[in-house]
């Protein structure tokens, strides 16, 4: 199953992670909100701790040929019935400056926006970078 281009919804107030993000085992509920009006830059904010948030973007505008493959187990865990249900987001690390911002293409967050479930998958493709330059992409 491949992910198609899907527009990020305005807001998902409660998004349940079926597996917590690696490194953050105590957070399984997040809100997904748009940071800009275009819905490119988005934020995932923990509902357990409002100080914990992540910047995420849909990969399409930055990495046009990026099509993460979703294995059957992940599709099942997210309750995916159709590719129209799934939205891929990549986590952005900004670091010292905006120019140095990177996106994690190896471990995208896959969202079933219909059922409001998500999970971060580690793709079985060693050519995908954990830190792909974002702004210059």
């Amino acid at each position: 199953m491949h992910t198609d281009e899907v527009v990020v919804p305005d807001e998902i107030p409660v998004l349940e992670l079926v597996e917590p993000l690696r490194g953050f085992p105590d957070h399984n509920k997040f809100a997904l909100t748009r940071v800009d009006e275009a819905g490119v830059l988005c934020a995932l904010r923990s509902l357990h701790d409002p100080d914990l948030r992540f910047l995420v973007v849909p990969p399409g505008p930055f990495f046009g040929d990026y099509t993460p493959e979703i294995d059957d187990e992940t599709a099942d865990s997210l309750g995916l019935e159709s590719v129209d249900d799934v939205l891929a987001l990549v986590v952005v690390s900004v670091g010292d400056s905006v120019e140095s911002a990177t996106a994690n293409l190896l471990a995208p967050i896959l969202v079933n926006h219909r059922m409001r479930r998500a999970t971060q998958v580690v793709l079985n493709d060693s050519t995908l970078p954990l830190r792909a330059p974002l702004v210059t992409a």
Partner: protein
Amino acid sequence: MLVLSRRVGESVVIGDDVVVTVLDVRGDVVRVGVRAPRHVLVNREELLREVAEVNQAAASPSDATIAGLSRAVSQRASTTDTRPTP
């Protein structure tokens, strides 16, 4: 930690359905094969650790950082429209 000695071609069974087989030993490199059901994730440990580190590095950017990145992303979108046409 349980420690077992195995020769090339020998295996260790974990639970009912995970089998780890030593395929080859050359110097300090051991090649192992893992047979497991699809729902059992098999990954190199350091890779999972690195994903956690990247997540931790990405966590909780400041408001100023978010605003700066938002500007950069908007400028980029207006100067180079790389979005695929429908």
